[in-house]
């Protein structure tokens, strides 16, 4: 399992990691008022269009075909199909610290940033040493 948990986008020091994940909310959602104008978002819109075009192109099909050809079905036999296997597997991997993702200690930080406070609890890794973070984007201040 991988769950990266982030408190809000701009708390957390540099604030560089999380903004990307909420960018489309800030730019595409939110309230507008009829008849008022919006600034140009030219570059950003082009990026999004590119994404959609690419999904149904011959290039994509060929990439999928190549990925399938490359797959080793035999070694994939143990591929997850049952929930119980999954959970067992996950626990083992987690215990070995193999889990590729990060479950951060940000839960506690949530309520603090909600209040707009910035006290930092001591920088001890919390409780879950086996899941020590490997992802660079979570909001452990001081690391970024």
């Amino acid at each position: 399992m991988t769950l990266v948990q982030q408190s809000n986008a701009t708390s957390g020091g540099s604030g560089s990691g999380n903004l990307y994940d909420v960018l489309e909310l800030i730019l595409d959602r939110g309230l507008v008022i009829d008849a008022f104008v919006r600034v140009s978002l030219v570059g950003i819109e082009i990026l999004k269009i590119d994404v959609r075009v690419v999904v149904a192109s011959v290039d994509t099909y060929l990439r999928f075909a190549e990925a399938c050809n490359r797959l080793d079905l035999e070694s994939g036999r143990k591929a997850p199909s049952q929930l119980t296997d999954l959970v067992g597997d996950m626990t083992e991997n987690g215990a070995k610290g193999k889990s590729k993702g990060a479950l951060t200690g940000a839960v506690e930080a949530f309520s603090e940033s909600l209040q707009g406070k910035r006290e930092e609890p001591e920088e001890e890794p919390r409780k879950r040493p086996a899941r020590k973070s490997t992802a660079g984007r979570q909001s452990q201040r001081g690391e970024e």
Partner: protein
Amino acid sequence: MPTYIYAITGADHPLPLGGLHGVGDPPSELRTLRTDLLAAVVSEAPDGLRAKRRDVMAHQNVLEALMAGGATLPMRFGLVGPGDDEVVAALDREADAYRERLAQLDGRVEYNLKAGRDEDDLLREIMTESDEIRQLNERTRARGSHDDRVALGELVAREVTARGQREAEDVAARLADAATHSSHAEPAPQQFLNLSFLVPRAETDAFVAAVRREAEERGDAYSFTLTGPLPPYSFV
């Protein structure tokens, strides 16, 4: 002078904006426009404003501060009115709708959940379950024409999309009870889910726990990114 609008709140909102500034370089000064029932947080709209990191951050910082102070309607980035008078007129004109929306959002925050699945894991599943795709795969692996490869890729692409949609619906259904509302958006490439939830502030711990359970049950092939609490951009 055009007016940049950050948010609309009730007139009784404390507007905790100390130390914050608005968009632009040099940063613009934040101001408040008021009617009897509502307030709007605004600044001057700088010339040539674009969606630069600095400006998007400034917008978001203002909204996070307001969110901590009470119900807030976040405006979309970059919204500019002709002037203060027109903003006040808009507040008056839409007062009922804004008040109603503020009441609905009071005490609630947004969480955004993105999820992806390891591509090999998904392709393996597709191949295990489709004879046609498996056979095409064997054929193109040996030699196979360009057309075969395109046909294989197209079938697989279709499956990837369909399964992604099913998984997105499934995750949404399983988390539905933990949130007040949810709102789907276009997933990023390589992901199947981009879903925002409106969650009562008092129940955020339970919501986060539900997401964590969901992530754990799905196993190593999946990666989830949960961001929040956020201003309720997706629910205004």
